[in-house]
């Protein structure tokens, strides 16, 4: 890829022409990975892995083994596609971190956001595909082992609380303290609802049916609606922050 012609062709570049002309193409590439990744995320979890909408927690081993038999191929393909693209979360959230570093709120919460989601992507995203992949891999495995993999996958995906709550808290506080207006203040208040859904999700660890179970109207469906609204707002505001970013500048170290 040839990006700029400022480096003289066919000769050793000198120290005198050090600054390339300001451009924002790199930022635009980093931004577009955000919607691209979350689109694929939807395909993997809704269409292939069949984790969303969630299958029931209050079922016997027969239902679970049938579930993996019915969706055998699509779950294994879903595992594959997720393994291929799940690094996109590092770009989507790394680019948010980049913008958080441009805030006047100091680097602490930018690093907290980065750490929380870098950790969270493993138990909160990858592990369900790994467990379900292991369950789908051998349909002749003992049903009680398949049922354990089913629970381990669903609970790690839907019941992952602290990594995300920590990152959301960091995001909200950083926005509220920031005076550079990188993200609007209302996005911070919306983010607080994300923390609330994580707190409500604590209940799915002790309920196997009803509104607070992992497929319940409150612990799951309300949380999914809030997540959907929040993610779209975050994406749109990330676009705006990227558009408003002056070319040729960088956040402080």
């Amino acid at each position, binding site marked *: 890829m040839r990006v700029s012609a400022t480096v003289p062709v066919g000769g050793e570049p000198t120290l005198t022409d050090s600054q390339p002309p300001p451009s924002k193409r790199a930022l635009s590439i980093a931004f577009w990975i955000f919607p691209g990744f979350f689109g694929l995320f939807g395909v993997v979890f809704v269409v292939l892995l069949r984790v969303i909408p969630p299958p029931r927690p209050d079922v016997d081993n027969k239902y679970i083994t049938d579930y993996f038999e019915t969706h055998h*191929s699509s779950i294994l393909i879903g595992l594959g596609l997720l393994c291929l693209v799940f*690094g996109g979360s590092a*770009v989507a959230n790394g680019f948010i971190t980049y913008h958080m570093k441009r805030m006047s709120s100091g680097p602490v919460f930018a690093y907290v956001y980065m750490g929380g989601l870098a950790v969270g992507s493993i138990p909160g995203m990858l592990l369900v595909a790994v467990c379900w992949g292991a369950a789908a891999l051998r349909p002749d495995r003992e049903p009680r082992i398949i049922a354990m993999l089913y629970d381990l996958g669903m609970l790690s995906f839907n019941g992952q609380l602290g990594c995300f709550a920590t990152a959301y808290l960091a995001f909200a506080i950083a926005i509220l303290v920031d005076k550079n207006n990188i993200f609007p203040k209302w996005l911070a208040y919306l983010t607080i609802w994300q923390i609330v859904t994580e707190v409500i999700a604590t209940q799915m660890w002790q309920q196997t049916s009803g509104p607070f179970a992992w497929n319940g109207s409150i612990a799951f469906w309300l949380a999914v609606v809030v997540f959907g609204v929040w993610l779209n707002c975050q994406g749109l505001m990330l676009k705006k922050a990227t558009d408003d970013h002056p070319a040729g500048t960088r956040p402080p170290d």
Partner: protein
Amino acid sequence: MQLLSGIDDLPRTANVRTQLMALWVTAISLALMLVAYAVFPGFWPPMSPEMSAEAVADFYRNNAGWIRFSMVTFNLCGLMLLPLFCVVTVQIKRMAAQSQAFAYCYLMATISGGTIFALAATIFATAAYRPNRDADLILVLNDLGWIVFVAPVGMALIQNLMLALAIYFDNGARPVYPRWVGHFALVVALAMAPAAFSMTVTSGPFAWNGAISFWLRNIAFGTFLVVLLVVSWKAVHRQAIDEGLTE
């Protein structure tokens, strides 16, 4: 690299010196990991996904010692790749303004990828911990270990993509890494990509023990680590020259 005398107390001296230490840590741990890799019985040849539960359990029983040694070494030394990746992060942060966005994405992918590596070694070693465990339980641990070890290449792909993009957009007069490193990172990412789908088949080159998903992926990544180590050493050396710390 010989740093000039009389510059010991400068912060920028420490920055260069610690980066060189970090590269040494990774170089030594890479050598140790090569040993662990060479003696892991499960890799010579890589265990087939078609093995029965009894065969897998027997394998862990008969090779428990070497499996423990190699997985403990993997666990101890695997994350010592982190110093190298953090030197790369520091070097990306030295690049032109446009490349900065990729530094945080690179660091995030590094953290997540390292976690996956630690998880794989943990699962394999747990399977070897009680060789008398029921065969079907050893089989499920073995499956989980292989899935986690082979398939989740996505973080390494993003690391290489971010590094390549950062290098391409580092269009100042003094690029931190030469451009071919970006091309090479992308080629390695392409070689590793097919392993993601290794669980959809149980035999042939794309299976978890196959020529593409296992050998091509591992050799490509191993070679890349050595190359990255060398070019990062050169990048730190150039930083030392630019900052007047060496000649």
